[in-house]
């Protein structure tokens, strides 16, 4: 490969400047603020500030509610990331088989991606709220004791379903693109050799999709950890009890509802460490097994 050489020394920096500015102002600056805040004990208005070192971290890690949120997050994120990817892959493969109206189906599949997270949450709420949900009354009529306002596992199922539904479109888009990049000749050759469709999929298509799958794994993990806040906020508000309170939701609740800034900041710092570690692990161990074409 030939290295691109820019004759101008200033231009590259100028071109980079907007992105650098955005990153510095919206990522590094708040992150530093969070670090600072996590070492302070402060009232809501910032009238009295005391440096407490790592006391906030000790308090957070000793709090059973925090461990509960960690558990909820693991269950929720795994369920959302895995089911959103599995369903999207299944749908992408099925759509490839359609002879007539492929574009129409594809468009319909991608549609939900245009829905904002909070709106997606409201949508599911209007369908499944035990009080006014369109589908709640029929479910009760069928003898199913549907009450996610009190039953933690049902509430968890509901937010997982809503968050998954929202993300399927995105994954679908990438899987369709990934599938189209696989040379038809390989699959035809397999067919000539007498491989069944299923065998061909798992031994040829799936491994060749690995770069896409890996990319989506990283994106979906981050999505499940952070972007699902709107859905949880709209559908369950972290309840019942603390059954759907994820780490991100707890940061919000402790900081902005209960006004415990120091502990909330400590939690967000821990969360940052978790995400950095997770991404590093994914790149270090899983990416090794990914073959880029």
């Amino acid at each position: 490969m030939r290295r691109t050489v820019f004759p101008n020394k200033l231009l590259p920096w100028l071109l980079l400047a907007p992105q650098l500015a955005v990153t510095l102002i919206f990522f590094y600056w708040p992150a530093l603020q969070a670090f600072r805040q996590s070492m302070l004990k402060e009232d809501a208005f910032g009238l009295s500030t005391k440096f407490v070192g790592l006391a906030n971290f000790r308090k957070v890690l000793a709090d059973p509610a925090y461990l509960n949120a960690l558990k909820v997050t693991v269950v929720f994120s795994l369920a959302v990331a895995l089911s959103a990817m599995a369903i999207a892959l299944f749908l992408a493969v099925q759509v490839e088989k359609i002879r007539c109206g492929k574009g129409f189906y594809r468009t319909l599949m991608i549609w939900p991606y245009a829905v904002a997270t909070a709106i997606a949450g409201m949508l599911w709420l209007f369908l499944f709220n035990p009080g006014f949900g369109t589908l709640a009354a029929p479910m009760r009529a069928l003898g199913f004791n549907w009450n996610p306002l009190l039953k933690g596992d049902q509430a968890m199922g509901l937010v997982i379903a809503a968050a998954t539904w929202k993300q399927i479109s995105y994954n679908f888009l990438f899987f369709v693109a990934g599938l189209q990049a696989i040379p038809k000749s390989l699959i035809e050759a397999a067919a000539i050799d007498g491989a069944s469709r299923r065998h061909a999929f798992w031994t040829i298509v799936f491994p060749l999709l690995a770069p896409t799958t890996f990319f989506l794994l990283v994106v979906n993990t981050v999505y499940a950890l952070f972007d699902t806040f709107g859905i949880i906020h709209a559908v369950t508000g972290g309840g019942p009890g603390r059954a759907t309170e994820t780490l991100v939701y707890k940061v919000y609740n402790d900081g902005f509802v209960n006004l415990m800034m120091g502990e909330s900041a400590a939690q967000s710092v821990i969360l940052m460490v978790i995400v950095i570690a997770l991404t590093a692990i994914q790149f270090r161990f899983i990416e090794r097994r990914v073959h880029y074409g």
Partner: protein
Amino acid sequence: MRYSPILIAAFALSPLAAEAKTEITWWHAMSGANNEVVEKIAADFNASQEEYEVKPVFKGTYPETLNAGIAAFRAGQAPDIMQVFDVGTGVMMAAQGAVKPVADVLTEAGYTFDKSQYLPGIVGYYSTPDGTMLSFPYNSSSPILYYNKDIFQKAGLDVDNPPKTWAEVWAAARKIKESGAAECGYTSTWLTWIHTENFAAWNNVAWGTNENGLAGTPELQIDSPLYAKHFQEIADLAKEGVFVYGGRTSEAKQNFTSGQCGILTESSGGLGDVIKSGINYGTGQLPYDETAEGAPQNTTPGGASLWVMAGKSDEVYKGVGEFFNYLSQTPVQEYLHQQSGYLPVTFAAYEATKASGFYDKNPGRETPILQMMGKPPTENSKGVRAPNLPQLRDIQNEEYEKMLDGQQTAAEALKNAQERGNAAIKEASGG
């Protein structure tokens, strides 16, 4: 161009004239019909005088408005007036140095603040233990009982006499369910505000020590026999499917307006939505426990009040004083009360509304006022206050939800809520 000098002068002077007005920013959380009331009050005040201009700004929900105000204060950009909901009162009171007492603002503006002109149940909640009014009660409400007259008729219940005690409510609710008049007998919004905080006041039992926190940092006392009895009764009804849980705040209103439930306890401020739903409804006072001594005592206000932020110029404070004086005037209070369903703050406005025949035409509108003024408040019935009331409510809701799901008894739920709550209060008050 004969007029040009005059025109030029007019152009030159008009911005000056505008700048001469002192601007007062007012952050609030009133949406929908209540937002129009805010806009109209501000516009009328601005038109009534030349010196000040009140600028209302909608900042989202109550918690969002409070957070926006706090963030703005930290950045040195606080608004002049901020609307803070009832549970944020403790937070604001703890922030001495961030707020200026309304009583001071009024006196400095040349008005005497005469406590006897204001409804004691409301003003008492927004005052310090020594009686200084800290914030201006803008919109106050109190919980009342709503019932569906059609469902009552179908169940064979007395349509004109809603149940008065909790025992009567439970009996009526069971009858509604058993007769098939509706699939659910009773539901309630705000188990915290209505069944925990107002329950204490209305039945004259303690919610916490130190006059429920009004005289100092409280320790919760909700792990007591009367509370345990009340919540166990609700838990039993939930098990039978007679009581249906709607959610932590006002979601249960939907269960009532949709005709799913026959009886509802909700804020008097929820009347608008009940009317809008078009159901054949009636109202009654909040039920009490007939075994409680001295019940019914009096209920306490919810809603929000206006806080004046510290560190503003004398000119601004003078304007805020003028504005609050304007807000206290009888016609303004009457308008606010009759339009929004919130309670009037002054006796004069209450009397004027009564004289106008408004309550005869709108029965139920007077109920929350009568509840609040029925008896002089005791140390259990002036309201509750804690530096971290939102957090305490969260804890209570978590425990109540586990109880309603059958995971624990009422006694266990109250014990856990009290223990966890007291630990949180200790933490929040710097212990």
